[in-house]
Every structure is written in C-alpha cells, then in structure tokens.
C-alpha cells in the first residue's frame, strides 16, 4: 500500500459553510491512495458529504464558505451525488448522450468519447437503455446512468455519496463489485455510505467520521468490529455484527453471514 501514489491528501482541513458558526469539518486529515477503496461512515451530519465536496474541489469554490488547511488532489476527480434526478444534464436526448455529457465537456475527440461512454454503460449494465430518454428512467436506472457518466470521464479519483441509495440489492451489489474493479485498475475510490453490510468485502479502509472529524480510521474489518460504533452517536456496523452485539456475544463480532457461520460452526 505504501508504494501507491496518493490520489487525495487532506491535511488539517477545517471548513465552515457560509453563515455557519460551527465548522462542518474540523482539523481533518485523510489520505486516499490510488487503487484503494476508502469508505466514510458516520451518523447524520458527521461531515461525510462535506468531505466529498472538499475533495472534489467544489467546497468552497462553488458552495462558498471558508476552508483552512491543505487539499491536494492528483488527477481528475469525479463526484456522484446522492440524488440522481438533480444530476441530469438537461442537455441530452438519450441515455448515451447523458453519459457523454461529461466527456464532451472535457473536449475529447468524438471517437474517444464514444468508446469511453460505451464501456461505462456496459460496466454499470445499462447498455440496453442507451437510446432511452433519461426522463423516462426509474430512480435506480438513472443512478446507474449518472454513475456511467462519471466513469466515462475516466477519473483518477472517484468520489461517491450514497451511490447505492436508489438501487435494489442486485444493483447495489453490482456497484460495490464495480468499485473493487476500478480500484484494481488504479482508481482511488472514496465513498460515503450507510450500506455498511457491503463494506467488509468492498472497502480496504473505513473512516468513521463524527462531528466533522475522524473518530477512527483503519482496515475495514477492524473499524467495523469496533464496539464503540454502537454508541449513541455511532453509525452502527453490519447487520450481522448488530445481532451479535445485541445478543451480547463475545467480541469481536462477525461482520458477514459467512463470518458468523465460520464462528458458530
């Protein structure tokens, strides 16, 4: 891990939204390296979405506010927001055009745009929808199309805010598998999620945010097994770990069904 390039480095970042007295991020430091999936977990208002905006260069540049500390991002970032319907460009007749919106804005030649968009649509399993009007898609389909649009921009750093919120279980599984594939190809992935059941297998590291700062960071399985996650202001952990915790069985809890079967068996 140590020899991988750092794709994102936040050094003692504090961020205030405009007109807000309390900071959304407090003295936060974090590194994401190329080829790893880092998951942000935390209770509501912990600062995960704000962290993604800062990492993507949108805060304070677009949203305003005040930032202290240093943010370094190597390579092009792409950010997926949680509500797909607000991310539609409004400038596309078809799903293919929608996915091509970002690459076209980068000024790429049409041939490159074509191959990048075709590949991205196939990867998120919406190639069959390519000629549909984006306005006629379901929330889940639209979420995948927007993700395809982000992938088509071939980002070095992929930032995702609740990417599985609109998806059914099969769609969510596809996304988590895809994130692992992207990491293997060298993309750095930073994802804010409440889909904690997926993290033991999908994430390399987990960062637990609380009140705008890092409460704990480390290997995914270590952090998710932390009993402090079940405190009043904690995000909890996987469903299996929750059952283990409620049954007051000896720690560390198993995180997945397979882990539990192995432990009990």
């Amino acid at each position, binding site marked *: 891990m140590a020899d991988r390039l750092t794709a994102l480095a936040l050094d003692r970042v504090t961020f205030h939204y405009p007109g807000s007295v309390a900071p959304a991020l407090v003295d936060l430091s974090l590194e994401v390296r190329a080829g790893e999936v880092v998951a942000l977990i935390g209770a509501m208002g912990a600062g995960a979405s704000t962290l993604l905006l800062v990492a993507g260069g949108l805060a304070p540049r677009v949203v305003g506010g005040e930032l202290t500390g240093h943010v370094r991002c190597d390579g092009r970032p792409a950010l997926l*927001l949680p509500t797909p319907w607000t991310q539609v460009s409004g*400038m596309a007749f078809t799903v293919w055009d929608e996915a091509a919106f970002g690459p076209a*804005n980068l000024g790429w030649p049409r041939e490159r745009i074509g191959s990048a968009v075709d590949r991205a649509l196939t990867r998120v399993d919406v190639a069959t929808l390519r000629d549909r009007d984006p306005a006629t898609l379901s929330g889940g389909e639209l979420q995948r199309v927007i993700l395809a649009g982000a992938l088509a921009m071939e980002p070095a750093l992929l930032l995702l805010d609740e990417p599985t919120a609109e998806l059914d279980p099969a769609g969510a599984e596809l996304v988590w598998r895809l994130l692992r594939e992207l990491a293997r190809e060298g993309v750095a992935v930073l994802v804010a999620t409440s889909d904690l059941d997926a993290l033991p297998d999908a994430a390399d590291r987990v960062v637990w945010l609380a009140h705008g700062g890092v409460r704990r960071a480390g290997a995914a399985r270590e952090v998710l097994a932390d009993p402090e996650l079940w405190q009043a202001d904690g995000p909890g952990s996987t469903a299996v770990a929750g059952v283990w915790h409620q049954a007051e069985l000896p720690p560390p809890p198993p995180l997945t069904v397979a882990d539990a079967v192995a432990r009990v068996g």
Partner: protein
Amino acid sequence: MRALHPFTLIAIAVALPALAWILPAPWGGVGTVVMAAALLLLPGGGSTVQAARAALLTAAPFWFFLFLLHGPGGAVDTGLRLTTMIGSSVWLIAALPPPRLVEAMVARGWPVSVAFLLSSTLSAVPALRLRAARLVEAQRSRGLRTRGGPLIRLAALRALALPLVLSALHEVDERALALETRGLAPGIRRTPLAPPPDSPLQQLARWGVVLGCVAALVWRIV
C-alpha cells in the same frame, strides 16, 4: 419543421412577432397570427394540439384586459400582436428540443455557459409543469382539495406554489454542483456530439427572414 436547423427555427419564431409589431394593424397582425397558428396546428409544424391549446389559454386573459382597456378596436390590434408573440414562442418551445439548440450553438463556437443558460430557460417550463403535477398529486393524497370554487382553487394554489418554488430553488444548488463535477464550467471547449445539419439554403432563408424584417421596418419608417 423539427428537422430544420435550430437557428432557422429561432429566426422564424423571432421574425413573426417582429413583423406583427412592424406591419400596420390589424392586417399585419392577422397575417402573422395566421402564420403562427399554421405553425402550431399544421402537421409537420413540430408542435402539438396541447401546445396550441396552451398558447390560446395564455393569450385569452390578454384579450380580455385589452378589451376592457382599449375597446374592441384596440383589443384586436394589440391582441393579434400579442397572440403572435405567444404563439410563436410556444411553437418554438414545442419544436426545438433544448439539447439540439445547445449542440448547434456549441458547434458554432458559442460559450457553453451561454448555450446552457438558453437551454435551461427553454426546458424550465416543461420541467416545472412536471414537478407541479407531482406536487398536486402529493398534496391531494394528503387531503388538499384542488377542485371546486375560486376560493378553494386559490387556497390550493398557495399550497402548491410554496413547495414548487422552494424545491426548485433547493435543486438549483445541487444542479450547480452536479454540472460542475461533470465538467460544465466557464471557458471550456465542449465537443459537439451531434451537431444539427445546416445547409446553404437554410442560411439563405435565415438571412432572407432578417432582411424581410429590416425591409418592413424601413418601409414603415419611410
């Protein structure tokens, strides 16, 4: 009509109201309103019956107030002009999909931000109508009465307008972030994906429309 280059469609939609105001009333207005009606109603005009109905419903209150203020003669003179403006605008929105306009502008080297601004304006009406319809359904499911006398409808309008405006304003922030992260920023050089085909004949026609308006203006002044 939908196959025409977006600039040609815009030239027609701008020229009709211009001629309605330049040419002497009432016959100038009669001519332009007939042309606007033809665009809206004839097959191949790129419009729909719903669009024509929307134009008529929009124009009707203007006729009413013009009649009250100016009497029958003034109402006809100004009403025909206003109806031409409304009709040609509604026709343009129906016949010109905003993405096609953006592609045409980008292909001609216009700044993407200007193209997007125009596109957003044109696509705002159908988007807001869709959102309003959803809000009406949501409010009805929570017991709001939207049908009945004027007072009931007025109360329903208030319950509809506030969430409509607030949600639209809230969405503006999120859309700005989404567009920014997808590379839409001032100064970019966007690749046109499918620039609408243009032809020397259409270019000639556009210049003809412009010269026609100028000639009409000169004729009226001189």
